[in-house]
């Protein structure tokens, strides 16, 4: 490996460690419930976007149906907790594993499609999941599932008086997804994904097992998306198909990565840091009356970023670095 690349990778680790340290102390002086909620949701979506980025960014398979894995994770951990009294930290892993299995099951037929055919197929599979959940009374059907309060503890992952622990759960989730993406960037798997993304035929002729590497990306991506879903369920305390399996959510999982820069290490985080607060603030200040103004703003934002910065916000960093070095 080229030394400058390893140096860059080491520098990224240092930046991440500093950022993590800042984020650990950041919420301590903030006691405002609204602001803390904003932080938690942003971190959660940063992790989700990074999970999406594994499949959609590094491997180049634009999935528009990731809420399916989010929903699976949320349902599995919630139902295990509600019906089986299994603690959410265990249910979370189980939910992630079931979601990964789901992603493999979906990937097996769908990965033979390419381009728009693939993207639309992912929407359709997600929509089938949504419709089935809506009609399946055993898992709550359209009325959803309430998560009963069983005492404030890390084992139950329930905190009623203070939301701070959720902040650390979301931060941990985001940090783990980042670490996995960092590791993948230097791993053999990451290289084969980039080859698959750039040119399938060339990748195959170089000996990359295309189907297998896509399946590996789907499983990893599905696992972390499912874990994110389980955390979300425990945080909100209530799930129903509209809140955890919808097409809108699928887009919201993908958008931060797209806005920030697909297939980049910092893109999904940067995108989430911009998009999620903007969306939350605009919908709570402008959209409270349901007049659609927040949607207009959100739509304009998406169009503007896609057109003005097609390679994502993360590319701005490169612009700054070039200017600092005095090069054009």
């Amino acid at each position, binding site marked *: 490996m080229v030394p400058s690349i390893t140096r860059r990778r080491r520098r990224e680790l240092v930046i991440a460690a500093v950022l993590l340290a800042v984020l650990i102390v950041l919420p301590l002086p903030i006691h405002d419930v609204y602001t803390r909620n904003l932080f938690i949701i942003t971190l959660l979506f940063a992790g989700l976007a990074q999970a999406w980025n594994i499949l959609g960014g590094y491997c180049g398979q634009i999935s*528009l149906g990731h809420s399916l894995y989010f929903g699976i994770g949320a349902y599995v951990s919630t139902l295990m907790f509600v019906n089986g009294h299994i603690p959410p930290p265990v249910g979370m892993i189980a939910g992630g594993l079931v979601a990964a299995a789901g992603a493999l099951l979906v990937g097996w037929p769908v990965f033979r499609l390419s381009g728009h055919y693939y993207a639309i197929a992912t929407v359709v599979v997600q929509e089938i999941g949504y*419709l089935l959940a809506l009609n399946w009374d055993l898992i709550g059907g359209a009325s959803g599932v309430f998560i009963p309060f069983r005492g404030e503890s890390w084992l139950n992952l329930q905190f009623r008086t203070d939301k701070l622990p959720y902040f650390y759960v979301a931060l941990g989730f985001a940090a783990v997804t980042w670490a996995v993406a960092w590791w993948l960037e230097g791993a053999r798997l990451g290289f084969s994904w980039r080859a698959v993304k750039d040119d399938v035929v060339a990748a195959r002729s170089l000996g990359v097992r295309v189907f297998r590497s896509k399946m590996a990306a789907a499983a990893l991506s599905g696992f972390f998306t499912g874990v994110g879903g389980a955390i979300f369920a425990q945080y909100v305390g209530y799930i129903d198909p509209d809140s955890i399996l919808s097409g809108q959510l699928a887009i919201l999982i993908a958008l931060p990565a797209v806005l920030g820069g697909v297939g980049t290490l910092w893109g999904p985080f940067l995108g989430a840091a911009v998009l999620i607060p903007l969306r939350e603030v605009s919908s709570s200040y402008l959209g409270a009356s349901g007049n*659609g103004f927040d949607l207009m703003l959100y739509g304009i934002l998406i169009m503007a970023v896609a057109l003005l910065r*097609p390679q994502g916000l993360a590319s701005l960093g490169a612009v700054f670095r070039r200017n600092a070095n005095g090069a054009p």
Partner: protein
Amino acid sequence: MTIETLLQVAVSGLLMGLIYALVAAGLSLIFGLMDVVNFAHGELMMVAMYAAFTLWQMSGLDPFILLPIVAALMFGLGVAIYRLLIARALSVRFNRGMVQIFVTFGLAIFIRGFMQFVYGGEFRSITGTWLANRTANIYGVYLPLPQVAASLVCLLAFAGLLAIGRTEFGRALEATREDREAVALIGIDRDRIFALGWGLGAATVGVAGVMLAGFYYISPNVGANFALIAYVTVALGGFGSMLGALAAGLLIGEVEAITAQLLEPSLKQVGMFAIYLAVLMFRPRGLFGKL
């Protein structure tokens, strides 16, 4: 199941299927021309429905008479969208596929917000028209006339689209579809053809929207569901194929009607989605798509 029920299911599938087919045709046209999937397609249909509603409210005229006006407006809207957004999205150098997806997706959200801003979120409907609530009864099969009229108009629109394919403009469209770069050499203005293609695609879905407004509720979110069905229809028929859109639309309509009859009506879309996935396993580029 009696023979009447069977016929009834087949007829309702046919009537809805023709509308699905026309919505899909506009999408397929644009895709075939320039490899762009318009994720705001359902919203264009919704705009046409509101346009018909507003014109009907102002003039009291039947949507039938308003049809050409709305189609012309939608043509203009389609051209404007191409000139303002899509031309720019086509000219980016990075992640072109992703930019197209998210530009049209952002447009969809914007249109939805705008309509909610102007009309509010409540459901509207066009009432008291010439055909409203009229039905025909043929051998025990119940035929709602607004839907019959809508599917006839859809058939006419399809014939119109095929007729356009035989004109000078149609040949220019076909040539641009075949080879985007080479057409410039024989004096075809690619940009103009693309703009007209968007106009035509928007007008097509506009026609479907106006006819749908004669018997369906109107709300800012009505497009989303139809759009999803349109994507499925286009992918099932094969992107860019008009005949594919028609065949797939009819198939989807029938499958939906049969699933609604056999299973629960709330599961009616599961049937069509399953058929779509099953077909794609054997024909990854749809029934009529070029391999």
